[in-house]
């Protein structure tokens, strides 16, 4: 049994904070925080910084609008945050790495499985021609769709439902990102990936992206995968 009152009070407070956050002086503050976040992500990436286009996109997207109101002040920390329904918004560093691995170019069409808050879709929308995003959890999907619309992301199309069969009407895709936990890569998604296209899947528990899998579809249709631990960590001591 959930304590309705507490939840109501929390969301009212959240709404209040969110409102406060939207004030002009706050907006400038968030802009500054966002720039700081971008710098931090670049600094954290060491010798392999994400492409400048990725960081430019992340520098534009107002991440604080993609988290629950009461978490807005923490939106630009290099942390994952809860967004309700047991789902999370990824750590900025992970978003940057994933987006970078997708190698998005201006005219690209991108498919996202697992809209979540819509943040990743927004980042992709800053870089690609069009983004198609499917969310399996209805309330999350609806919230994200409204949010993306209200923020003016015209090139993002969202849908609530099963992501297993991808978005055949819009296929093939230059890039696919599967942020929803899946026991396997749905074969229909691989089919909808263009020759030379890239797919990225983060693996690990909520809040805990352990490694990223990059699937590359070669020109001959064969696939190769790379598994990337996002942190520079050598498992053997003295093995640097």
């Amino acid at each position: 049994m959930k304590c309705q009152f507490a939840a109501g009070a929390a969301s009212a407070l959240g709404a209040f904070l969110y409102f406060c956050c939207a004030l002009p002086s706050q907006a400038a503050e968030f802009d500054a925080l966002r720039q700081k976040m971008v710098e931090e992500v670049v600094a954290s990436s060491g010798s392999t910084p994400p492409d400048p286009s990725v960081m430019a996109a992340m520098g534009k997207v107002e991440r604080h609008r993609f988290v629950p109101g009461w978490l807005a002040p923490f939106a630009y920390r290099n942390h994952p945050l809860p967004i309700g329904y047991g789902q999370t918004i990824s750590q900025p560093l992970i978003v940057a790495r994933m987006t970078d691995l997708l190698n998005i170019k201006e005219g690209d069409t991108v498919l996202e499985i697992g809209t979540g808050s819509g943040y990743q879709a927004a980042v992709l929308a800053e870089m690609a021609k069009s983004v198609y995003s499917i969310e399996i959890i209805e309330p999350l999907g609806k919230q994200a769709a409204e949010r993306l619309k209200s923020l003016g992301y015209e090139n993002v199309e969202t849908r609530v439902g099963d992501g297993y069969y991808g978005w055949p009407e819009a296929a093939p895709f230059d890039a696919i990102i599967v942020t929803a936990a899946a026991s396997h890569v749905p074969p229909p998604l691989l089919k909808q990936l263009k020759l030379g296209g890239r797919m990225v899947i983060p693996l690990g528990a909520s809040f805990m992206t352990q490694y990223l899998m990059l699937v590359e579809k070669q020109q001959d249709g064969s696939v190769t995968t790379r598994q990337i631990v996002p942190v520079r960590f050598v498992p053997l001591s003295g093995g640097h």
Partner: protein
Amino acid sequence: MSIPRPPLIAIGLLSACVLAYEVLLTRLFSIVLWHHFAYMIISAAMLGYGASGTALALLKEKIAPRVGWVYVMVAMAMAFLMPAAFLLAQQVPFNPLQLLWDQTQLTRLLAIYLLMMLPFFCGGLGIGLVMWHFGSQAGRVYAFDILGAGIGSLGVIGVLFLMPPHNALVVLTALALLAAAIAVIELGMRPKWLAGIFLGLGLAVFVALPGSWLQAQPSPYKDLSQTLNIAGAQVVEERSSPLGQITVVENTLIPFRHAPGMSLNATDEPPPQLAVFVDGEGPLVLTRFDGKFAPLAYLDQLTSALPYHVLEKPRVLVLGAGAGSDVLQALYHGAAAVDAVELDRNVIDLVQQRFRDFGGSLYAQPGVRVFAAEARGFVNASPDRYDLVQVALMDSFGVASAGLYGLSESYLYTVEALQTYLSRLTPDGMLAVTRWLTLPPRDALKLFATAVFALEQNGIPNPGGRLVMIRGWKTVTLLVKNSDFTAEEIEAIKEFGRTRSFDVAYYPGMLPEEANRYNLLEQPYFFKGATALLGPQREVFINRYKFYIEPATDDRPYFFRFFKWAAAAELFALREQGGMPLLDWSYPLLVAALVQAFIASIVLILAPLAAARARRALPTAPVALYFLAIGFAFMFMEIAFIQKFILFLAHPLYAVAVVLCAFLVFAAMGSWLTGRWQKKAMARGSRHLTLAVMTMGVLSLLYLAILPGLFQALTHLPDAAKIAVSVVLIAPLAVCMGMPFPTGTMRLASTAQDSIPWAWAINGFASVVGAVLATLLAIHLGFAAVILLAVLIYGLAAIALRRFA
């Protein structure tokens, strides 16, 4: 008000509630969070007891004129707090997965700990009050107290067979009210109708309080919660037993398609499945089967299918069969016979009865036999020989990869376990174990190291000749053969990998350039690790590896512990760079729980005494040392034996209930004996204690030597017989362990009575901290060492006793 006789039945009942609640909480927390919070619950219970002792010491004069009333109030408060504390604790948004990101999680953990303490505080106060007030009859009160405790801890297991845990909580609430009603009668309190009111309240709670109010809400980050958020998900069946709460979820809108780590080359889609969750974790899946094998082609695209490409028509043993995925895989590959072993009868029943048509009577297919048994016990007792022993992948990916299992003991993946499996293989048979892939490699290398050790201990001169490991993008499968792999077999393995884009991580004679071809890693970590573990530099490699990959043994069955302090420091420093998720959080949580127990018990048990007048009656150093030592030693023994008996009794909850009950009852008997002896010969107090400590030492050494063999020999016995054997084994040890506390107290009573509250408080402090410390020590040193340490500490106590006063 004169009180004629102690409320013995009410005491017994209240004590039963306290212990039943303690066991029940471990069950409830398994559903809400994850199962290894047991040590924290024991610690919270001890904290409640300890704090109640302090409160009693400080307030007893004030309470004295109204003992009856206070007792009744306390029982009522406990009735209220048992469900209320749990409900409130559920409202605390504690998420262990965020622990390392968000420091406020520690405060939330503390809040849960303190909330859980409250009912135990009330229970302890009620029992302590009666014991103190009826000092002259303390023996009888104590006997009823312990009898109740014993019945409560075991009885709750029986109750959990009849009803789900939230309903059991309602029963306990009603029983605590009943205890209040009985106390009114037993104490001859006025007005008499008060008893009727409490009885009525108890009945009303029992009849009218909807258990659903108290239903444990799994964390939103557990698999079940996440699955139920998906549009179209419907719970179609729920079952409950002490082994776990089972939830079956169907989704016709967005079907389940569980095919862990399926090859990217596969084009097949799994047929419709039902998802089966145990305590909200999983899923195990029940796959639709209509007798046709074509729709099951996806089962050949998993790394676990490898052995079927090496063996022809094998006789298979599946350990951890669950809802039958691995049995289906065996049938798909033409296994000659399949024996499936699953611990939980409820899960078997789902396949055999409730969803028989959906699952195509899987467990009744020709050649398939199913056994409700614990895997290790079954293998030990089975006279059969198998061509293939498959250890199924039962835990959920998220949980395993997040290090959530770090502190849970698992006897499935120890050196001894692997040796046992190997002993049931035909001469050319093999063992196959599939694990989730973690990066940098953890499970896979630890498993590989475990296999190397097991083979070496079996006297195999060249273990490398019998090992093969392959990895997909999400799973790893290890094969351990009973003889050397042949060239044809290796060719078949390579072909299996080639067609599915699975990398061979190790096979005998493998060249470095063959590693790391399909799922590219920065380095061929798995191949390098496997060859290092087979080479002369193994020890160096294990030590230098930043995760703990030393093989797990039955003495230290923490397969999922990968935590090393040095790596933790490095990863913590790299947290902003993505290092945090590689940190196994369960270990820092244990350390946090220890610190929390330490501070809470100082604040709630020791500090109030120091602040009150009692500070004038500070105990001497030997007295303090004595009560500290026996508190630690008792907890060390109890926790170590609970863990040790998990293997024998097949489930942590059984072990907690049986071992706790046996320790309580027989320690009480030890206390009672001490009382009798002491009356007869006061002067010989320390002599019989020395004797008790020596007996404990001898028994402990004996048990350490014989228990593994004995467990193996008796593992086939039915549960009831195993429980009886456990009780008989624990009894003599517990009798001895029951002696030091009353010995010390009686000695103080005659020399420094004022320091008794201090002595008890110090003992309480040691119990609270000891419960957590024992787990920490067991992880590092093993159970044997913890038991020996306990004996040593008891020895120290015996010396301290001689210096009393």
